[in-house]
């Protein structure tokens, strides 16, 4: 290898390459320096450079070759050989720049092994390689040029290398985008036939995903460059003539990837402005519509369907125009049904795959998110109405889910209903008017009452957690709901027992914590209109029956639960299995906002002072005591006035509720009279 004759060195290199798999350790240990010398010195001779690069690629390869397996060496100890040689190679300065410079050689014998070597190095030491490439002049540009290489292997391997290099490095992602990556990728995707294309399409989409995910600058560039429209043809699905051909495994992967690309653009984690514009553009490009067609098509594989449902959700989340569009989407049934109803039907159907049901819940949450109109529409479907409804409604489905024997359905329905109430005081009060027909002979019961009874009767943690989250959301910031809840005779005794219980089981403790939270809400938003459970009474009850410290520690069980931090992270419910489904993202936000206030309201005590002191201190103490007394008197007056005010207010509310109930009954009666009248007319007609 150190021979002065080029021919000799070339032969030596060829031999080294031949040995570099089987005797990787030896070749690496004794040959590394010599190979580097060849790379630096014999650049004009493409053959020898090719051998040298190939040899290095083998030595540094992250994979274990079958040729090198030997009985005396364990497989374990071969695993890290490539990594160690990579480290040695990186120690010598400008090794990587040298390899990068060989990418400019057009000769396949040189360019291809250089790519393979870079890929091996990147697999073993990604961070180091990323940093080196960033500081080598035109490092990324050189790679980008290779995407246009007419030899498919080179192009494809470049793509794979770029996927590696863009992982988690925003700077490289931006340079790659600047170098016209999106144009190149769409060129390839178009050429390969969009979603019908092979694995190369999937690779293009994976790179696109790396460039866009969590990268606001690139997301901006993507939307400004009109690339969203270019995604459109990816969703052109032929009519269902031959479903097997339609959903080949590769097609499933391609669609799955492009759905993730869309989600990267409208992710709830991005700055609101980018998300909103992208949502509009997705609608304008017809992509939301195309996604809805996938949702309603038959024969779509579950994982595509699941991802498509989530994608629709995020494309409409918090965007009232898109949400309204979604509310008008119809499923092709006879007679046509609203798409959202069809989705909810799957959600409360035990036989549907769990992941799919989770996706629907998420989509439904997105549908309601920050949209008072849609929230009102949902609650409206539960209220007694004049118009005869023959079709099943969202409200009915959620109610049936709430009282189903399936705890997952209970949880989903509770959470969905609670999302109709978030930051919406009007609907919290509206929902109080919902009456459910009880068993024959008994008067109808309010939904709130029924939900509380269910909470007390059901044995499953998941259902209880769901109901407690619903009740907490409902009662928070709504004194009228608190009042109705406190009037249920068993409600507070049940919560007191739960919060005071000492049963030790992780999930039981969560239930106890949530019960404490709900009690706390009853204290915070109490207008003292239920005599037995005024603010003060409840505080005493907590002090005596639960214990203040115990109460606070029960509360902390909620935020300490492992599902809490998971749910708090992102809005999409992510549970590997149904048992993990416990806490909801929006509920966690509510909990975080109120926990401190509740602790303060419950623990800020009227406890007396203690200890003694010298003369001056004693005088001051007297003074303070005196002031204290006067303060207490004033406070008492204020309290009395407040209570009087509250009592008046609640009488007013009662009257208002009464009027509302009368109106409902009136409407019902009118409807009945109307139908009687029709029958009457009909009979007259006949006679």
């Amino acid at each position: 290898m150190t021979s002065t004759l080029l021919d000799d060195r070339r032969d030596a290199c060829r031999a080294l390459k031949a040995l570099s798999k089987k005797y990787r350790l030896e070749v690496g240990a004794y040959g590394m320096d010599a190979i580097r010398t060849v790379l630096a010195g014999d650049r004009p001779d493409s053959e020898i450079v090719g051998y040298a690069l190939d040899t290095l690629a083998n030595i540094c390869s992250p994979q274990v070759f079958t040729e090198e397996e030997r009985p005396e060496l364990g497989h374990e100890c071969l695993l890290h050989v490539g990594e160690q040689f990579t480290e040695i190679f990186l120690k010598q300065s400008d090794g990587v720049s040298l390899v990068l410079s060989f990418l400019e050689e057009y000769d396949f014998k040189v360019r291809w092994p250089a790519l393979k070597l870079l890929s091996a190095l990147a697999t073993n030491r990604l961070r180091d390689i990323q940093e080196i490439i960033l500081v080598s002049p035109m490092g990324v540009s050189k790679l980008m040029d290779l995407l246009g290489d007419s030899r498919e292997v080179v192009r494809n391997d470049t793509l794979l290398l770029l996927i590696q290099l863009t992982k988690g490095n925003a700077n490289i992602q931006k340079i790659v985008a600047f170098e016209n990556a999106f144009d190149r990728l769409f060129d390839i995707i178009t050429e390969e036939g969009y979603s019908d294309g092979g694995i190369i399409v999937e690779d293009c989409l994976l790179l696109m995903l790396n460039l866009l995910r969590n990268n606001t600058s690139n997301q901006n560039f993507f939307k400004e460059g009109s690339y969203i429209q270019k995604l459109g043809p990816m969703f052109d699905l032929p009519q269902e003539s031959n479903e097997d051909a339609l959903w080949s495994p590769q097609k499933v992967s391609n669609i799955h990837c492009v759905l993730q690309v869309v989600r990267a653009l409208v992710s709830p984690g991005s700055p609101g402005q980018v998300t909103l514009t992208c949502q509009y553009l997705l609608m304008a490009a017809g992509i939301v519509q195309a996604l809805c067609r996938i949702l309603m098509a038959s024969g779509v594989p579950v994982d595509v369907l699941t991802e498509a449902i989530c994608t629709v959700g995020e494309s409409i989340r918090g965007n009232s125009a898109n949400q309204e569009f979604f509310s008008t989407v119809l499923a092709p049934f006879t007679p046509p049904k609203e798409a959202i109803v069809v989705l909810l039907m799957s959600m409360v159907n035990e036989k549907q795959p769990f992941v799919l049901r989770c996706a629907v819940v998420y989509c439904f949450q997105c549908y309601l998110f920050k949209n008072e109109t849609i929230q009102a529409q949902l609650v409206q479907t539960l209220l007694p109405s004049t118009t005869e409804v023959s079709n099943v409604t969202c409200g009915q489905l959620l109610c049936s889910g709430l009282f189903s024997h399936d705890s997952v359905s209970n949880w989903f329905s509770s959470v969905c209903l609670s999302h109709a109430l978030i930051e919406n005081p009007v609907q919290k009060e509206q929902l109080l008017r919902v009456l459910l027909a009880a068993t024959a002979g008994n008067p109808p019961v309010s939904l709130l009452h029924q939900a509380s009874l269910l909470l007390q009767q059901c044995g499953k943690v998941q259902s209880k957690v769901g109901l407690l989250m619903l009740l907490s959301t409902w009662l928070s910031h709504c004194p009228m709901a608190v009042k109705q809840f406190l009037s249920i005779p068993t409600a507070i005794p049940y919560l007191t027992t739960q919060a005071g219980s000492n049963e030790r089981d992780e999930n039981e403790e969560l239930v106890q914590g949530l019960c404490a939270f709900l009690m706390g809400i009853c204290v915070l938003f109490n207008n003292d209109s239920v005599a037995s459970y005024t603010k003060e009474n409840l505080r005493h009850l907590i002090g005596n029956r639960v214990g203040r410290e115990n109460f606070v520690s029960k509360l902390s069980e909620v935020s300490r639960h492992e599902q809490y931090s998971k749910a708090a992270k992102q809005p999409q419910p992510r549970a590997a299995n149904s048992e993990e489904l416990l806490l909801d993202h929006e509920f966690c936000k509510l909990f975080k906002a109120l926990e401190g206030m509740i602790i303060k309201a419950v623990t800020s005590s009227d406890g007396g002072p203690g200890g003694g002191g010298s003369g001056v201190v004693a005088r001051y103490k007297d003074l303070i005591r005196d002031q204290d007394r006067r303060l207490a008197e004033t406070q008492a007056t204020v309290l009395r006035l407040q209570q009087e005010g509250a009592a008046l207010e609640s009488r007013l509310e009662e009257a208002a509720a009464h009027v509302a109930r009368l109106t409902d009954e009136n409407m019902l009666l009118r409807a009945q009279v109307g139908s009687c009248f029709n029958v009457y007319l009909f009979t007259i007609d006949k006679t």
Partner: protein
Amino acid sequence: MSYAYLFKYIIIGDTGVGKSCLLLQFTDKRFQPVHDLTIGVEFGARMITIDNKLIKLQIWDTAGQEAFRSITRSYYRGAAGALLVYDITRRETFNHLTTWLEDARQHSNSNMVIMLIGNKSDLESRREVKKEEGDAFAREHGLIFMETSARTAANVEEAFINTAKEIYEKIQEGVFDINNEANGIKIGPQHSPSNASLPPGSQSSSPSSGCC
């Protein structure tokens, strides 16, 4: 909205001279009083009209801090225009111009149009670099020159638009190879060079609204 041409710009210059503010003023018509250090680069875009043609500007605002210098270099090659910015209230930012210019000339394509900008012209009382000095530097190095204020928006539109005009003229003269995207110029989707018909009703040289 389809454009006749797309130009890629970069904005370079020392940290704190007001590069990000210039971009924000140009794209969003806002001023940001606190220094929000740019990390790496940030992207912005706007449509303008020149000679009755819609031109899309894609702008990469780079970080001025020394630590990001090598990253910034990756953006020279693909840019058609560069705004080289200094701060008229800090002489050292003017003194560094030679280094910036060397860097730009070394890594960019030779036709890149460079606009020299003396920013913060609203701070007359704290001026350290005379306007004549900027003028002289620009003349010596063959650059276009303007003083701007990202705060009052004075000359901000003009800086971006005049750069585009210069590029546009170079295209008309045939200096730029518009088919080579590495020059930072793209022809719009529906426009071939022979068929660059005017969109009806568009006005000459007036910026269109920011969103597109």
